[in-house]
């Protein structure tokens, strides 16, 4: 059959070339002989016959060539030979090939890795039904900085009743709980939610029926839904877990569902624990919540927009409801407004600035890589003009020449592209592994094919444009001119020189922008780390203890527990001092409320000065290394019974007591209850130094410290100052705790160094990444200018030879070459500086303690770039001085 025959012929044509060729030669010979004999018979002489026969044949080689061209698969054969030739060329120029492939790999790989990560984080698939219609609804206060303030339950009820834009609203609030039974006691984050929480999110449990409306009633709310991970880990994926009972904080709860495998509550804002919830339980409002009292603000609220409602509509309606409430309940709600945020934005929003900056950096690197590649290819094109002219002269069609160049560019693109893909895969995984978990908490990342193909196409396009086009164009024209030329100074070479110069200038300016950005981030980070947190952070171990209500029902029991625990730990070897606190620094957690300073006029709660409230144990300030500014610390009696005393920090004094004597002031802190009468005023006995509670980059806030007996919280963080490595103390600690109460888990163990490190981890990460990109850019730009100058030197060999023969010294030649480079560097740096001045504004949200136009950075970084670039020019410049004038003059 025809296909089979054709395939067989194709095979033979490709792989039995030598036999085919000898066969063809023989055939041509015999044809010639037959023709000669024909002529002889016509009466010509033997010599004449042969000559005529040859004439009629028209040239053996030409005929053979025609036959070869028309063979089946000849097209494939010549592409393959083009590829072989290209490979030889590339191997013969290892420097060029290496740089070109590396450039491609960097451009494609780095680009794809970052784009994939950004894409996944900013466009992450949320594990809820139709997440585009979900929003978070927060309160916000004009006097406070927090745009995502937790919500008061009575306000939630009013919002629910008065809105017409949401089809459903749910609330949630998390707390720590001890899970016992079926293993070691373990501390679990539990999320107390409205019974319709999963309905609002549109999520059905993987096992069991989940919450029903019945669970929204008191008495029917002792049920839980367990996370998939917890189900697998602690309950061994028991298929019959639904219906069984687990014990939380001493109280039994019935399991009514297991959440789906990918389900997670991804919003970190509004969390009271800072952890990831693993159990959900219904939270039924007590009746007091619907009578409009001040019960505190501690809920996070998620709502689903109705199909026909849009976000702006929802925002304006909620704002007007909030202003209604502010008028109706001025005591609780004046100055409070509403903030509606799409869920997706809530999850990824705080990452956006950093990710966008990185995205910009990567685009720059891609541009530089393309410029580098283009410059390289242009130089090659120029140096091959001769070769191409010769080819054209001996009969190659423009198409044939173009095809060879195309194959070469394709081969280069293929090699670079493969390296780029490999780098992209490795880079993506490396990024995920190295990134702080609060920046990117994704388990794994598939490669983003869209971005990969875009990067590949971009670089291939650049390669084609500058590798192929100039050569192709030159093959069409000026062939004889090119052949006659001694040197290479054609107008097309001048054009290509202009293009190459522009590329180098562009590269330098882009590199400068990146370097300045990185420099700003580095300075910013150094400033950040230099901030004194207000206490001594080294050798400090922290862990959390939550006392369950079942076993520690009364205040007295809880106070007693800690009174036993702390001295026990203090007595252990290696411990310098021990204390405890409700919300230690750098955990991102805290509680704040209104404080009525009695010496100042009264005001409704919502207009009172706001202060953080911290509950502390004995020896807190000395153990933490927080200095005393005036007055005294708490006495032992004040730390064991309720004595209504308080200590404030300097920020409180500066902000609220301007000038007045702080010691002796009486403060009514609205923490225990939100009515004046139940908040017995505390007397200020001391003023202490400020602590950067939320992070090194946020300023200290006014804080009121209470001794533990004043507000007996059941969950406290214990702080241990050790002599040696804090972590070495862990086993001892576990034992001690176990001795006191075997049912209490050791939870949330971290050294303060770790916590501090975590709080600056995203700044560090962004800085490192931008630094890496800036380094890439610098290397690429340096290589670019090196290549240009090196090439120019070879071009000018004759000229330099003449100059040296006429008496030019080494330093004259050096100066000549370096001036050429310096001109480019100057232009590039100037352009880059202008661009940086305009663009650095975009970095301001990431900077700390450093302005976007920081003079130190703006002055030193360009100098650094110039130094590196000139150093890159120096190498070929030196080579230029070693040119032997006699050789140079003969050089063509």
């Amino acid at each position, binding site marked *: 059959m*025809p296909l089979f*025959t*054709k395939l067989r*012929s*194709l095979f033979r*044509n490709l792989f039995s070339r030598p036999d085919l060729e000898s*066969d063809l030669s*023989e*055939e*041509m010979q*015999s*044809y010639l*002989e*037959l*023709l000669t*004999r*024909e002529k002889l018979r016509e009466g010509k002489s033997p010599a004449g016959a042969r000559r005529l026969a040859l004439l*009629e*044949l*028209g040239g053996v080689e*030409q*005929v053979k060539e*025609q*036959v070869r*061209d*028309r*063979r*089946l698969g000849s097209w494939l054969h010549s592409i393959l030979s083009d590829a072989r030739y290209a490979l030889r060329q590339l191997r013969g120029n290892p420097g060029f090939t290496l740089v070109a492939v590396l450039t491609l790999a960097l451009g494609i790989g780095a680009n794809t890795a970052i784009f994939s990560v950004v894409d996944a984080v900013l466009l992450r698939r949320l594990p809820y039904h139709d997440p585009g219609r979900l929003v978070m609804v927060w309160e916000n206060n004009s006097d406070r900085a927090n745009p995502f303030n937790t919500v008061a339950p009575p306000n939630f009820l009013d919002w629910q009743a008065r809105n017409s834009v949401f089809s459903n609203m749910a609330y949630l609030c998390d707390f720590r709980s001890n899970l016992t039974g079926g293993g070691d006691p373990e501390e679990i984050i539990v999320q107390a939610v409205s019974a319709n929480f999963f309905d609002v999110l549109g999520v059905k449990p993987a096992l069991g029926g989940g919450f029903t409306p019945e669970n929204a009633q008191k008495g029917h709310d002792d049920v839980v839904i367990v996370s998939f991970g917890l189900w697998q880990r602690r309950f061994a994926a028991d298929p019959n877990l639904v219906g069984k009972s687990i014990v939380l904080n001493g109280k039994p709860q019935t399991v009514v569902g297991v959440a789906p495998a990918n389900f997670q509550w991804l919003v970190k804002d509004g969390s009271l624990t800072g952890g990831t919830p693993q159990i959900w339980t219904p939270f039924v409002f007590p009746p007091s919540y619907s009578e409009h009292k001040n019960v505190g603000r501690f809920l996070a609220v998620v709502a689903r927009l109705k199909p026909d409602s849009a976000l702006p509509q929802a925002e304006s309606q909620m704002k007007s409801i909030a202003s209604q409430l502010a008028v109706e309940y001025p005591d609780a709600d004046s100055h409070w407004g509403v903030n509606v945020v799409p869920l997706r934005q809530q999850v990824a929003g705080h990452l956006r600035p950093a990710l966008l900056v990185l995205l910009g950096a990567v685009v720059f690197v891609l541009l530089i890589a393309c410029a580098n590649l283009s410059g390289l290819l242009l130089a090659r094109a120029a140096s091959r003009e001769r070769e191409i002219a010769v080819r054209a002269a001996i009969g190659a069609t423009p198409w044939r020449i173009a095809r060879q160049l195309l194959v070469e560019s394709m081969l280069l693109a293929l090699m670079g592209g493969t390296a780029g893909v490999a780098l992209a895969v490795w880079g993506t995984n490396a990024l995920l592994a190295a990134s702080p978990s609060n920046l990117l908490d994704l388990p794994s990342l598939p490669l983003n094919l869209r971005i990969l193909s875009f990067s590949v196409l971009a670089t291939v396009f650049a390669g084609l444009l500058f590798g192929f086009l100039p050569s192709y164009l030159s093959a069409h024209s000026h062939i004889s001119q090119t052949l006659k030329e001694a040197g290479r100074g054609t107008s097309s070479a001048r054009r290509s020189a202009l293009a190459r110069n522009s590329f180098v200038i562009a590269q330098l300016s882009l590199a400068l922008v990146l370097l300045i950005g990185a420099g700003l981030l580095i300075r910013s980070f150094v400033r950040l780390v230099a901030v004194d947190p207000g206490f001594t952070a080294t050798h400090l171990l922290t862990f959390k203890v939550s006392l369950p209500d079942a076993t520690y029902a009364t205040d007295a029991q809880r106070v007693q527990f800690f009174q036993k625990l702390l001295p026990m730990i203090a007595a252990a070897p290696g411990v310098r001092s021990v204390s405890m606190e409700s919300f230690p620094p750098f955990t991102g957690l805290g509680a704040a409320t209104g404080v009525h300073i009695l010496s100042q006029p009264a005001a409704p709660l919502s207009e009172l000065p706001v202060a953080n409230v911290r509950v502390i144990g004995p020896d807190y300030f000395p153990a933490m290394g927080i200095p005393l500014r005036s007055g005294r610390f708490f006495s032992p009696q004040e730390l064991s019974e309720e004595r209504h005393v308080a200590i404030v920090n300097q920020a409180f004094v500066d902000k609220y007591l301007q000038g007045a004597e702080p010691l002796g002031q009486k403060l009514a802190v609205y923490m225990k209850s939100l009515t004046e009468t139940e908040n017995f005023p505390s007397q200020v006995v001391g003023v202490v130094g400020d602590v950067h509670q939320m992070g090194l980059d946020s300023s200290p806030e006014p804080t009121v410290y209470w001794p533990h007996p004043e507000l007996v919280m059941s969950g406290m963080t214990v702080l241990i100052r050790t002599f040696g490595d804090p972590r070495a103390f862990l086993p001892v600690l576990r034992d001690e705790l176990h001795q006191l109460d075997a049912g209490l888990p050791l939870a949330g163990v971290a050294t303060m160094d770790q916590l501090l490190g975590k709080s600056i981890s995203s700044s560090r990460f962004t800085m490192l990444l931008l630094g890496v990109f800036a380094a890439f850019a610098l290397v690429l730009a340096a290589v670019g200018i090196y290549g240009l100058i090196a090439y120019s030197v070879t071009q000018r060999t004759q000229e330099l030879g003449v100059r040296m023969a006429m008496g030019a010294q080494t330093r004259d030649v050096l100066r000549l070459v370096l001036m050429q480079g310096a001109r480019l560097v100057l232009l590039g740096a100037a352009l880059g500086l202008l661009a940086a001045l305009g663009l650095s504004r975009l970095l301001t949200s990431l900077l700390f303690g450093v302005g976007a136009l920081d003079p130190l950075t703006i002055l030193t970084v360009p100098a650094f770039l110039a130094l590196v670039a000139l150093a890159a020019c120096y190498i070929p410049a030196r080579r230029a001085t070693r040119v032997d004038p006699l050789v140079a003059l003969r050089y063509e």
Partner: protein
Amino acid sequence: MPPESTTLLQGTLDLLILKSLATGEMHGLGVSRRIEQITGGTFVVKPGSLFPALHRMQDEGWIASFWGDSENNRRAKYYRLTKAGRKQLDSETRRWSRISLAIARVLEAS
């Protein structure tokens, strides 16, 4: 000048070669002379066109080649029609008739 076979008339050349081989196997020069003879000198096929055509048609499987002795007792490469080639000849002949008929009609119409 008699029109030479060019790439434009490649299909025609194939037909001519097939037809000339239908009357018997022949070597390259022989095929060329036969075509010249049959067409009364209208088509003179140069080797630059003949051999590529012959080799391509061999690749397609319409003709087959073998080495044999020529008139002067020298070795020469002979070509013969294959079964597939015969079929191709038939279909090409029919196609050609259709085309020439159509063209004739066009020319007749005034």
